[in-house]
C-alpha cells in the first residue's frame, strides 16, 4: 500500500510544519470555536428542555384529559364522571382500587430572588391520595409530605435557588389565607421539581373550582393503554380520552423545543457559513505557503492524492480543535445552568449527543473548506512551482 504510506508521511510532514503557519491556522480554530460554541449553547436549551420532558413523561403512565382539551391547563373533568373513569379497564389496581390520581393544575405568582425583578408564575399542582402510588419517583428531601386535607404545600427542589419565600417553614398567601410550606421534594429531575404541590381537593375549594384538570393513571401491562382508550371511547358521556404520558409531553413540548432548535440551527448555520469562508481562506493560503514543499514532494514522486489528503487532514485537525474549544466554552458557561421558560424550570444540558453534533458540523465545515484548496494543491504544476524557487 504505497499510496497509504505516502498519505501518512506527507500528512505528518505537513502537520509538523503547522506551527510555522500558526497565525492563519488560528482563523479556522477561532472561527469554528465561535460557530460551534454558539450552536451548542443554543442547542443546550433545546436539549435541556427535551430532557426534562422525557423524564416527566413516563410510558408506564397515561394522562386522561377531556376530548376537547389539548393540554392539562385547559382540562376540566367534573367529579361526576370521575368514578366511571377510575373504573375503566387498563388502569393498574392495588388493594385500595385504581392507581389513578385526579389532579388540579393552576398557577401561582412567586417572587424571584434577584432584587428588583418582577414576580414569575409557577405551576401549582393539586394531587390526591394516590399521588405517591402513581408517581413513586416523588420523594421528600426536607420536611415532610403535606397531610391529606390540610392547607399545606410542598415545593420542588428546582424552585428554591431561583425564587424566594419558598423555604420549608415559609408561608404562601393563598385565596383563603396563608399556607405553610411543610416540605421540599425531588422527582429525579422532572418537570414537577419546578412546581408547587398541595392537596387537590383543598386547593380546589380555595380557588372555588369544581373540576379537576386531568387524571394521571398507572397503566397495566402491554396493550392496557389501548384497552383504556377503547373503554373511554365506548362511553361518550364521559367525553374524555387517554394519552400515554410520554407522548403527551412530547406533543406539548414540540413547539418550544422546535423553536429552540430552529433558532440554534439558523444562528449556528450562519456562523458555520462564516467559519467556512474563513477555513477556505486559510487553506488556500496554507497551500500557497507550501507551494515549494508540495512541488518538491511531487518531484520526489509523491502522488497528488497524498498531497490533497494532507491539506484536508490539516483542515480537519484545526476544525476539530476549534470545535472542542467551542464545546468546552459552551459547557463551562451553560451546562447545568437553571433556566426558567415561562412556568417551566429546566437545566441547560450539553449532552454527549450535542458534542457529537458539534464535532460533526466542524468536520463538515473542515471538509468543505479543505476540498477546493486540496484540489489546487494536487494539481499544482510541478515545473512552474519549482522554477519559482
Amino acid at each position, binding site marked *: 500500500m504505497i499510496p497509504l504510506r505516502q498519505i501518512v508521511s506527507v500528512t505528518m510532514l505537513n502537520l509538523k510544519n503547522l506551527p510555522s503557519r500558526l497565525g492563519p491556522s488560528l*482563523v479556522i480554530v*477561532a472561527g469554528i470555536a465561535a460557530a460551534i460554541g454558539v450552536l451548542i449553547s443554543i442547542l443546550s436549551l433545546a436539549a435541556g428542555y427535551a430532557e426534562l420532558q422525557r423524564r416527566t413523561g413516563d410510558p408506564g403512565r397515561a394522562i386522561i384529559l377531556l376530548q376537547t382539551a389539548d393540554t392539562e391547563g385547559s382540562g376540566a373533568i367534573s367529579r361526576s364522571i370521575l368514578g366511571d373513569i377510575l373504573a375503566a379497564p387498563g388502569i393498574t389496581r392495588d388493594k385500595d382500587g385504581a392507581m389513578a390520581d385526579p389532579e388540579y393544575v393552576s398557577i401561582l*405568582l412567586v417572587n424571584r430572588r434577584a432584587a428588583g425583578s*418582577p414576580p414569575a408564575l409557577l405551576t401549582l399542582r393539586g394531587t390526591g391520595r394516590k399521588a405517591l402510588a402513581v408517581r413513586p419517583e416523588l420523594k421528600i428531601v426536607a420536611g415532610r409530605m403535606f397531610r391529606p386535607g390540610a392547607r399545606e404545600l410542598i415545593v420542588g427542589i428546582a424552585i428554591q435557588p431561583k425564587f424566594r419565600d419558598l423555604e420549608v417553614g415559609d408561608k404562601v398567601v393563598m385565596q383563603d389565607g396563608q399556607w405553610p410550606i411543610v416540605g421540599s421534594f425531588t422527582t429525579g429531575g422532572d418537570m414537577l421539581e419546578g412546581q408547587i404541590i398541595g392537596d387537590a381537593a383543598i386547593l380546589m375549594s380555595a*380557588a372555588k373550582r369544581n373540576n379537576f384538570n386531568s387524571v394521571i393513571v398507572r397503566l397495566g401491562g402491554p396493550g392496557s393503554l389501548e384497552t383504556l382508550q377503547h373503554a373511554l371511547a365506548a362511553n361518550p358521556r364521559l367525553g374524555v380520552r387517554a394519552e400515554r404520558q410520554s407522548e403527551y409531553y412530547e406533543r406539548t413540548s414540540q413547539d*418550544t423545543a422546535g*423553536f429552540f432548535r430552529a433558532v440554534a440551527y439558523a444562528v449556528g448555520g450562519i456562523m458555520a457559513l462564516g467559519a467556512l469562508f474563513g477555513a*477556505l481562506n486559510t487553506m488556500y493560503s496554507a497551500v500557497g505557503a507550501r507551494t515549494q514543499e508540495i512541488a518538491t514532494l511531487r518531484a520526489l514522486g509523491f502522488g497528488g492524492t497524498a498531497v490533497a489528503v494532507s491539506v484536508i487532514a490539516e483542515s480537519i485537525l484545526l476544525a476539530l480543535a476549534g470545535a472542542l474549544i467551542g464545546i468546552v466554552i459552551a459547557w463551562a458557561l451553560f451546562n447545568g445552568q437553571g433556566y426558567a421558560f415561562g412556568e417551566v424550570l429546566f437545566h441547560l444540558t450539553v449532552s454527549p449527543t450535542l458534542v457529537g453534533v458539534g464535532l460533526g458540523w466542524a468536520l463538515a465545515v473542515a471538509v468543505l473548506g479543505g476540498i477546493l484548496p486540496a484540489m489546487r494543491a494536487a494539481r499544482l504544476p510541478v515545473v512552474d512551482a519549482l522554477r519559482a524557487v
Partner: protein
Amino acid sequence: MKYFPLVWTALWRKPARTILTFLAAVAAFTLFGLAIGLNATYGGMIARARADRVYINPHFLDFGNLTLAQRDRIARMAEVREIGVSDFFLGYYREPKNEVVPWFLDRGMRRAYPELPLTPAQWDQLQADPSGVFLDNHTAARLGLKAGDPMPVLTAAPSRRDGARAWPFHVLGVVENPSWARGGLTLANYDYYDRTRPLAQAGHVGQLTILLKDPDRAVAFTDQIDRTFASSPNPTFAVTEKAQAQNGAIYRFNIPLVTQGVSAAGLFMILFLIGNAIAQSVRERVAEFAVLKTLGFSDTGVMTLVFAEAAIPCLLGALTGFGIATALASKIATLSALQKMAVAPPTLSPAVLAVAFAFAILVAFVSAAMPAWRMRRLDIASALRR
C-alpha cells in the same frame, strides 16, 4: 478619497482572499443585524410602553377573581384618569386546534386602551350587537372567516349560564393586525359575556386597565393597590406597563443576553479572519509600502491605507449583511415556529445599521492595528533592500 483606487487595487491583488473575507463579514453581519434588530424590537416595546398605564390582575391568576365592585372602588381613586375592564376565555372554533381567545372589552377600554384597532363607529357596533366580534386579519385568515360569518366558539367545559359550552358569535368586521398583538385579536363585548356566563361568576373581571393622571406615580400606585386588596377576598397583582414589557423581553427570553452573545461571537469570528487577511496582504507588499513612503506618503498616510484595506470588506459586508437580515426579518415573521412562540421579528432600522457600521469600523481597526503599526514604523531602506 483620492487614494481609493490605490486601496481598491490592493484588495483585488488576491481576489479569492478578498471575496472570502467579504463573504465571512456578510455572514457575521447578517447575524449581527438579526440579533441587534431583535434587541431593538424588544427595546422599542419597552420604550413605547406607556408610563401612565397600569394593569391590575387577580393575584391568583386562575379565572376572573377581580370584581366590578373593585373596579368601582379603584375608579373613585384620585390618581385614576380612565379605567377599563376586560376578560377572556380559552375556546376554539370547530376543532380544538383552532384556538380562539375572545378578549371581552367594556366601554371603558375604549379610552383606557386607545391602541385597540377599532374606529369609534366600530366601538359603537360592538356595543350595539353584543354577540358580534371583530377579528384581526391574521385571526380571520387562520380561521377562514370574513365579516358577516357566524363564528361559534366552543369551550372545553360548560361556560354559559344555560350550561352549554357554545358561544354563537358572529364576525362584525375584520381589522388590521396591530404589531403588538402578534398572537391575533378576537375583540368581543364584556357586558354580553358577563350576563351570559354562569351566575356564580357574574361581576368577575379578568383584568383592569388603568390610565393614571400622573405617570410618575405608577409604581407607587401599583403598590398601593396591592396593599389595599391584600387581605380582601380578591387580592390583586398590579403591574405597570413598563414592568410588564421588561418582564416579557428580559425574563422570558433574556433577549439582551442572547442577542449580545450571538453578535459578539459573530464579530469574534471575523476579527481573526480579517486580521489574518490584512496581515498577509501587508506582508506580501512590504516593498510596495516602502515605495509609497519613498514617494512621500507620510507614516500616518500609509497606516490609513492599511486600515482602509481592512475597513472596506468590513463595511461592504456590514451593508450586505444588513440587507440580507432585512430580507430575512420579513420572512421570519411568518415562520410558524416563531409565531407559535409569539416572538416579534427583528427591527432593521437605520439605527441598527449605524450600530453595524460602527462595529464594522471597530473590527477593521482592531484587526488591522498590528500590520498598520508595522507599516507606520517601516524603515524604507531596510524594506527596499529585501
